[in-house]
C-alpha cells in the first residue's frame, strides 16, 4: 500500500508530534516514514550517553536542534561512582560542532563538562540559545564567561546542583550590553560573588526574563532593586535571605515583591531570617512552588508562610517543619502534588526534630492530589504505610528514606514488607520507588507482582537472597532503571534474567554478592550490554573469581564497549576478554 501523501505533507504532520516515544513509533511504521521522520526530527533525548555514539546519532538524525544527554548513573549523586568514571561531554560537542552548526539547545545531566567544552559550544553554534546543566562538574566560571560572551541569542542559562570551580572572574559581566534575550538565568549552585551592577543591568535590559535564581552571595539588600527591574518574573530564587532588622529594607522588600504579581515559584532562602518572610506575603496566593530546603527556620515560622500559600503545588522543605507543620500543610494546601522533606541533621544519631511518619500520613490524608513524595525520617510503621497507600492510590513517585539502614517497623519490630507491599498494590501507576528500612525477600515478591508500571527502583540494605532480585527482574514489566546497594543479591538472579537487562536502560549493583565469574559470563553472552565492573581495589583478576566484585554497572548499548574507561573500570565483553588472557 503506497502512501499518496508527498513527503512534505507527512513532514508537516510529523512536526506536530513532539513526544519522543511517539516519534519513535512513527519511525517504525515503514521505511519511508523512518526516512522522512529522521530528517525532520529536531530534538533528541539520550538517557545514557554510552548507549549510543555521537556518530550513530548524527548519521540517523542530521538536523537536530535540541540534544539532551545523561551521563553518570544516579548513585553518582551520593559519591558511589568514583571520580574519573566517565560521562565526558567533549566528544559529543566536538562531533556536533561539525554536524549540527544550527544546534540551539543542550541539556546535560551528570556529565563532565570542561571549560573547553563550554568554549567550543559558545563558538560553534550560531543560534545557540539554551544551556541547562544539571548535576554536572568539571568546569569553572571561565567556561560560563565564554557562554555569556559569545552566545548572541542566549535565552536560557541554568545550572542545577553543579560543582563549579568559581574563579570569581565576573563571568556575569561577560554578557555584552547588547544581550537582551535572556528568559531564564539560574545559578544557585555557584559559590562565588557576582558583580551586582552587572547583574542589575542585565536584569534591566532583559525584559523577557521570567526565571531568575540567584546564589547565596547576593545579599538581601540587593533583592528589592532586582525585583523592581523585573516585575514580569515568574520564578525567583533569592540569594541570602538574611539581614539585620531594618524597617526600610523590610518595606522596600515588601513593595518589591508586591510588584511581581506573576510570581509562581520561590526558592533560595539561604540563612533565612523569619522576620523577613512576611515581605513575600503579598504574592503568596499565586505561589505554586516553594523550595525552602535551605532555610533553617523552625516550624512555627514555616507554617506562617505556608498558610499564605493555599495554591501551593510543590513544597521542598527541611524536616524542621515537623509533624505539626505538615499537619498545617495538609489543611491549607489542597492542591499539593509534590512534597520533599530533607533531613536537617542526616548524620545525627538521635532525632533533632519532631518529624515522624505521622507528618507524611497527615499530608496523604489532607492532600488529594499528592503524587510525588520524597521523605526522610527516622521511624516508620507498616500501619502508616497502609494508611498512606489507602489514602493516595494516585501516587506516582514514592521515595522513602528511613535514615537508619534496616530499621524495622518501630511499633511491631517487624519488617516493612507489608507496608511497601500495600504501596505497590494500591498505587497502580507508581513509576518510581525507593525503599528503606528492614525488608526481606517478601517485599520484592510484592513489587514483582504488583508494580507493573514501575520504571525506576532504588534498593539499599534490603532482602535476604537472590529470590528478591529475581522477583523484581522477572515481575516488573516496565522497569528501566534499577539501582541496588548493599543487598545480598548475587549471580543466580542476574544470570537467570540476563535478557531482561536488554529491556532496561541500566542496572547498578554495588556491595552485593555478584562474582567476577558471573560478570564475565554475562558480558560474553550478552553483546548488546556493556557489563562494566568498577573496582578501585585493583583488577578483579587479582582476586578469586568467586569473590564479590565491588561495583557493577550494566547498560544496553549499540555503541559497543566504550573507549574512555579509566583504569578501575573493566568491560566484561567478548572483545575485552582478551585483556584477561
Amino acid at each position, binding site marked *: 500500500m503506497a502512501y499518496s501523501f508527498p513527503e512534505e505533507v507527512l513532514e508537516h504532520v510529523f512536526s506536530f508530534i513532539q513526544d519522543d516515544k511517539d516519534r519513535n513509533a512513527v519511525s517504525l511504521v515503514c521505511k519511508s516514514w523512518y526516512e522522512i521522520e529522521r530528517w525532520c526530527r529536531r530534538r533528541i533525548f539520550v538517557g545514557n550517553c554510552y548507549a549510543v555514539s555521537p556518530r550513530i546519532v548524527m548519521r540517523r538524525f542530521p538536523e537536530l536542534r535540541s540534544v539532551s544527554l545523561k551521563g553518570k548513573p544516579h548513585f553518582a549523586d551520593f559519591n558511589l561512582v568514583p571520580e574519573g568514571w566517565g560521562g565526558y561531554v567533549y566528544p559529543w560537542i566536538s562531533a556536533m560542532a561539525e554536524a549540527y552548526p544550527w544546534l540551539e539547545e543542550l541539556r546535560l545531566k551528570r556529565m563532565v563538562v570542561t571549560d573547553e567544552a563550554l568554549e567550543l559550544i559558545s563558538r560553534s553554534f550560531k543560534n545557540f540559545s539554551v544551556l541547562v546543566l544539571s548535576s554536572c562538574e568539571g568546569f569553572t566560571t571561565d567556561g560560563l564567561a565564554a557562554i555569556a560572551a559569545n552566545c548572541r541569542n542566549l535565552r536560557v542559562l541554568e545550572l542545577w546542583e553543579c560543582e563549579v570551580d568559581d574563579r570569581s572572574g565576573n563571568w556575569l559581566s561577560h554578557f555584552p550590553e547588547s544581550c537582551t534575550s535572556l528568559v531564564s538565568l539560574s545559578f544557585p549552585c555557584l559559590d562565588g560573588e557576582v558583580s551586582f551592577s552587572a547583574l542589575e543591568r542585565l536584569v534591566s535590559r532583559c525584559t523577557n526574563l521570567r526565571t531568575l535564581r540567584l546564589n547565596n552571595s547576593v545579599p538581601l539588600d540587593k533583592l528589592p532593586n532586582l525585583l523592581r527591574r523585573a516585575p514580569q518574573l515568574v520564578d525567583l530564587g533569592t540569594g541570602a535571605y538574611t539581614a539585620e532588622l531594618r524597617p526600610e529594607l523590610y518595606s522596600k522588600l515588601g513593595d518589591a515583591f508586591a510588584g511581581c504579581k506573576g510570581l509562581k515559584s520561590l526558592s533560595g532562602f539561604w540563612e533565612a531570617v523569619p522576620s523577613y518572610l512576611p515581605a513575600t506575603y503579598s504574592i503568596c496566593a499565586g505561589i505554586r512552588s516553594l523550595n525552602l530546603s535551605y532555610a533553617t527556620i523552625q516550624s512555627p515560622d514555616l507554617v506562617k508562610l505556608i498558610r499564605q500559600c493555599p495554591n501551593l503545588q510543590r513544597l521542598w522543605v527541611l524536616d524542621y517543619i515537623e509533624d505539626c507543620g505538615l499537619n498545617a500543610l495538609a489543611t491549607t494546601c489542597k492542591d499539593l502534588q509534590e512534597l520533599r522533606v530533607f533531613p536537617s541533621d*542526616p548524620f545525627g544519631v538521635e532525632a533533632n526534630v519532631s518529624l515522624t511518619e505521622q507528618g507524611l500520613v497527615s499530608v496523604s490524608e489532607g492532600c488529594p492530589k499528592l503524587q510525588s513524595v520524597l521523605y526522610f525520617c527516622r521511624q516508620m510503621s507498616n500501619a502508616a504505610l497502609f494508611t498512606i497507600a489507602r489514602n493516595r492510590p494516585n501516587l506516582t513517585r514514592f521515595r522513602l528514606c528511613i535514615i537508619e539502614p534496616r530499621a524495622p517497623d518501630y511499633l511491631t519490630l517487624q519488617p516493612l514488607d507489608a507496608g511497601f507491599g500495600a504501596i505497590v498494590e494500591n498505587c497502580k501507576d507508581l513509576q518510581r520507588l525507593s525503599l528503606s528500612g528492614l525488608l526481606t525477600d517478601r517485599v520484592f515478591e510484592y513489587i514483582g507482582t504488583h508494580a507493573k508500571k514501575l520504571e525506576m527502583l532504588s534498593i539499599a540494605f534490603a532482602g535476604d537472597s537472590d529470590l528478591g532480585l529475581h522477583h523484581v527482574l522477572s515481575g516488573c514489566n516496565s522497569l528501566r532503571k534499577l539501582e541496588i546497594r548493599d543487598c*545480598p543479591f548475587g549471580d*543466580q538472579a542476574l544470570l537467570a534474567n540476563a535478557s531482561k537487562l536488554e529491556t532496561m536502560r541500566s542496572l547498578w549493583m554495588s*556491595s552485593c554478592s555478584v562474582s567476577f565469574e*558471573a560478570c564475565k559470563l*554475562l558480558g560474553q553472552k550478552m553483546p548488546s550490554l556493556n557489563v562494566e565492573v568498577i573496582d578501585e581495589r585493583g583488577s578483579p583478576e587479582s582476586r578469586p573469581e568467586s569473590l564479590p566484585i565491588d561495583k557493577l554497572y550494566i547498560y544496553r548499548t549499540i555503541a559497543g564497549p566504550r573507549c574512555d574507561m579509566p583504569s578501575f573500570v573493566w568491560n566484561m565483553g567478548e572483545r575485552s576478554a582478551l585483556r584477561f588472557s
Partner: protein
Amino acid sequence: MESKVTCENDLNFKATELRLGLPGTDDSEKHTPPSVRSNKRALSHETTEDSRSKSNSGTSDFGDDEKEAPPAAKAQVVGWPPIRSYRKNCFQPKKTEPESAGIYVKVSMDGAPYLRKIDLKGYKGYPQLLKALEIMFKLTIGQYSEREGYNGSDYAPTYEDKDGDWMLVGDVPWEMFISSCKRLRIMKGSEARGLGSYV
C-alpha cells in the same frame, strides 16, 4: 496481606539460559546457596552492629546480656543517607533563648572598692577574657600554664563554679567554663600560689 503468587522457596535454575560452568554439567553444587547473606560486608562500614537484623544465632555480637550502650557517633556509610553533599550542612541547633541573652558574672578583685560585671559571651576564649580583665582592673595577669597556674604574676583569676568550688581560670575548656562559672575573683598572686602548686 495475601500474596496471590505461589512462592517457590528455590528458583528452578536448570531452566535458565545461563549458568556458570560447562554446558551439560549439573553444577548446582558449585553455586553459592541462595540464602547467602553478605550483610557482613555492608555492616563492616558501620561501627555498631545491632541484633535487629535477622540472624540465625540467638546471640548478639556484643555479649549476650549486656544492654548495648547507645553509640556516641556512627561511622558514616558511604553515600548514606542518600542526600547530595551540598545538603549536608543544614543543621542548626534550635534557638530556644533569644539571641541577646548574655552570661553576666560579677568580678571582684582583692582590694578593689567595688565589683564589676562582665558578659562572658562577649569573649571568644581565655586570652580575650584575661586581656579584658587586665584592662578593666589595670593589672597584669600573666601566662597560664597547666602545671604552675599563674605563678609569676601579681594576680590570678579564679572563679566559683556551679558546685560552689573556687577554681583557677583556664583549667577547663572555654565552653565548659562559661557554662559553669558563677562569679569571678581576681586573687592576689601570693594567695593564688597555694592554688597553683596544687597538683
